[in-house]
C-alpha cells in the first residue's frame, strides 16, 4: 500500500456495496494504491478516466 495514502485500506473497508458509484469510488481508490508521488497518483486517476472513456 502506498506510503502516500496510509489510510487507504481503512477507506476501502468503508467502500462496501455494489452500487455503481461505490464501485467507481473503489476503482479509483484501488488504482492509486501503489502511487508513491502525487504525479503517480494523478496518472493513476487519469488512467482510470481514460478507461472510462473507452467504455
Amino acid at each position: 500500500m502506498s506510503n502516500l495514502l496510509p489510510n487507504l485500506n481503512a477507506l476501502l473497508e468503508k467502500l462496501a456495496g455494489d452500487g455503481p458509484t461505490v464501485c467507481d469510488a473503489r476503482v479509483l481508490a484501488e488504482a492509486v494504491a501503489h502511487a508513491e508521488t502525487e504525479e503517480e497518483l494523478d496518472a493513476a486517476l487519469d488512467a482510470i478516466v481514460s478507461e472510462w472513456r473507452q467504455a
Partner: protein
Amino acid sequence: MTAASRPRLVSLEIRGFRAFGTEARTLQLDAPLVVVHAGNSQGKTSLAEGIEFLLSGQNSRRELLGGAKAEYNDSLRNAHLPTASADVYVEAVLRSTDGTTHRIRRELLCDFGQGTECDSRLLLDGVEVTDLSEVGLTLADPPVRAPVLLQHTLRHVLSTEPKQRVNYFKALLSLTDLDDFRTRVRAARGRIEAEPIGDALKRVDTLAGTPAAAAGTTITALVKKSLTVDAVRTAVDTELLRAGTAVLTDPDSGGEPPTFDAVDELNAAISAAMEAQREQAFPLSSFGVGALTPDTPANPDITGYVAALVEVDQHTASLTPVFTAVLAIGTYAELTQPQRCPVCGTEDALTPERVALLRDHLQRTQALDAAATTTTAALSKARHSLDQFGATITTTVPSVINWTEDQHIKAVAALQDLGIEDTLLTGAQSQASQVAATASNLRAAVAAARLSVEQAGDAVASRRPVSDDLASRYAAINSATANLVTAIEEYSRRVDALRTAVEAATRSQITVGGLTEMADLLARRADVVADVMAESQRQRIIKRLNGADKQLRDAAGSVLDARFDQMSDTIAKWWGTIRPEELVGFGGVKRRAGGTLFVNLVASLHADQASPPIERDALGIYSDSQLNALGLSLFLARNDLLSSPIVILDDPIPGSDSDHRLTFVQNTLGHLLDAGIQVIITTFDNKLAEFAQTNYGGGDYMAYKLDLLNVVAGTEATQATDAFAQFMLEGEEHLNSPTAKGRRAACGNYRSAAERLAKQIIATGQTAAGTPTTVSDFDAKGLTLGTLVPLVLPFVVDGNSEKGQWRTFAKVLNPGNHDDDVPSTGELKQVRGNLRTINKAHQKHWPGGLLQ
C-alpha cells in the same frame, strides 16, 4: 516497545536560535523528567521551539498563531547574532532503542523571508537525512508535527474556526491523506471539466433565434443521452433535415415547404440558396473553374510494334493485310487448281504453290500482327484519353474571361458597395486571362498529339513505320499542363481572397434566417456528431467522478468517526488525570451533524457523580482553566496515537491554576513516566517545579534554570541542582557593577561558589580515597573558605598553580564584606575565570565528575 527501550534525548546544544545567542548552550537531559524553570522572557519557549525545530525543521507558531506570514520573517535566527555568524543550529544526542547514541543536528540554512519559507538541513551522525524515523522519532502531519506542546498549539484548536479545527484533528489523526486523495480526484474531474466543448457543437447554438432553433436544442440535448455513434448520426441528420425545411421555407410564398430525404440533397439546396443570395450581391459564380481531370494523358506504348516491324521485310509487311484478306476466303485458302488473282486480276496467277507461299509468309509475320493489334488498341485508348482531357481543359477557363466591359463596371460597383477593394477583382481577372492563355496552349498541344496518334494508327494498320514525333507531342502536353496548373493555382489564390472577402461582406446581407448557420453545420456535420459523442462521454465521466467523490467523502467520514471515537477515549483518559472526579467532564470529539467540515468538542455535564451527563459544546461551557486542560489532553492524546517517546510541554499548566498543579504533576506526569516517555517541561511556575522535584527528584530527575543575562550571548541554562553553577551565575549579574555595593554582592557570590566547589572537591577526593563523604557533610559543619582551603589542597589536580589560586581566593574574596576593600571588577573576573577552570579540570579528572 517497552518503556525502558524508548529513545531518549541525552543532551541538547543550541546556538543562535531565537533567545539563544552567540554562546552555544548545553543542557544534559539524560533523565525521564527534565523540568526547566525560568521567569518570563528568559528563553523557555525558545528552548521548546528549538526542540521543535530540531525534530521537524518547522516552527508551528507561524502556522498557528495567526497574522501575516511576513510578520515571522527573520524570526528564528537570534536578532543579535553578528551577520558573519552563520552558525545557527540545534543539536542533540539521542539514545535509541538499542542503547546506541546518535548525534542529531539541525542547521538553519535560511530564515523565513519575504515570500520564502525557512530552510534547514538535518544531519544524523553527520549524514544528511530527511527525517528521524530511523532512530524512532516520527512526525505527525502538519501543522503540529513534532511532539512539542507550545502555548499557541495548546490554544489553537480551541480558538480556531470549526473548519480549521477539523483540519487540526485530521492532522492529529494522520487522516489528511484521505483529504489529499479526494482533492486529487476532484482535480482529475477539474481536468475533464476544463476540456473545451467541440467547436462544431458550440456552433449548434448559433441556430438559436433562427427558424431552426428547435433542431439546435434537440441536437444539444443529445449529449444527455447515452447513444451509439450511429444513433447520434441518425438523430443529427434528422434534425438537420428538419432544420433545413424550416430554414428554406418561405412563409410568404404560400407554397408547400421543401422536404429533403437525404443530407446531400439538403446540402445542395442550402448551397444553392447561399449561392443565390451571394450572387445577388456579387457574381462570384463567374470565377469558378473546373478541375483538370482526368490525369494528364500518357504516351501510348508502340515499342512492341516498332520492334516487330524491324524483323520483317518492309514491302512484304505492307502486303500482309492483303494476304490475310485473300486467305480468309475459303475458295482461295483451299485452292487445288490455278485461278485468277483476286488482287491484280492475272489469269491463273494464283496457284496452290503460291497460296502455300502466302501461308508461309503469314506464318512468319504473325508476331508483327500481334504487336500491331496491341498497338492499335493502345492508340485507340490514347485517342479517347486525349479527347476526354481536351474536353476538361475548357472547364478550367472561368467565365469571367468573357465579361463585357459593362459587366466589369457593375462588378466593381458591387465590390465598392460591399466595401471591398477592387484590386481583388482586377487581380483575379488578370490571372483569369493567364489561365485562358495557358489553357489555349494546352488545347493546341492536345490537338497536335491527337493528330499524331491518328497518324500512328494509320501507319500501324498498313504495317508502315510510325512517325517518331509521338513522344515530343506528349512532352508538350505535360509542359503545357504544368503551366496551366500553375496558372490555376495562382488564380485560385486570388479568387479565394476575393471569395473570402465577398462571403464575409455578404454574410450579413443574407436575408434567409439560419441559412449561413445551416451551411456551417452541414459543412461540419461529421464534427457535430463527433462532438456530441465526446461531450456526452465527458458529461458521463464528470457524473461518475462526482458520484465516486461523494462515496469517498462518506467513506472518509466513517473512517474519521472511528478515529474520533478512539481519540475521544484517549482524550478523556488524559482529562481525567488533570481534572479527576469533576462534574464537568469531556464528552468526546464529534463531527457536526454528520458532516466532514466541522468538528465539535463535547462537554459532559453531571449534576452529581452518579447522574447521566448532559452534553454541550465544550467551548461554550468550559472555563479558561478547563479549556487549557482540554488543549493539553488533546495534545497528549495525539502523542499516544503517535507513540511518541518524547514529549516537550511548554507551560502546560498556567500558574493561576493552582488547583491542578498537583494533579498534573502526580497523575499526568505519572502516566507519562510510567509509559516510559521522556518528559521535558518548561515552566514559569516555581511551585510546579517544586512539586515535580518533590515527587520525582533523584536520579530520574533533572532541573534547569534559564537566565537571559546577556542578550548577545543568549539564554544561559544552569542545572538547578548544581549550587556551584548557581552561585557563579548570580555573581555574573553583579560582576560589572560600577558600584562597590554591586561588586561586594558579586564577591559574596564567588566566595559561596568557591566554598561550594571546595566542598565538592574534598567530598569527591575523600570518597575516591575510600572514605565515603557527601557535600552536605561539610554544609553541616558551617566551614568558611579560609578553613576549607587547607582541606582542598591535597586534592588539587593542577599542582602549584591551582594551590596558589585557592589561597588567592581566600585572600581576595574574604575581604569582600568589608566596606573599605571591595575587589575590583578585574580581580573578580580573574577569580571567576580561575573558578571555572578549576571546576572544569576536576569535573574531567574525577570519574563521574564532582559529587553534587
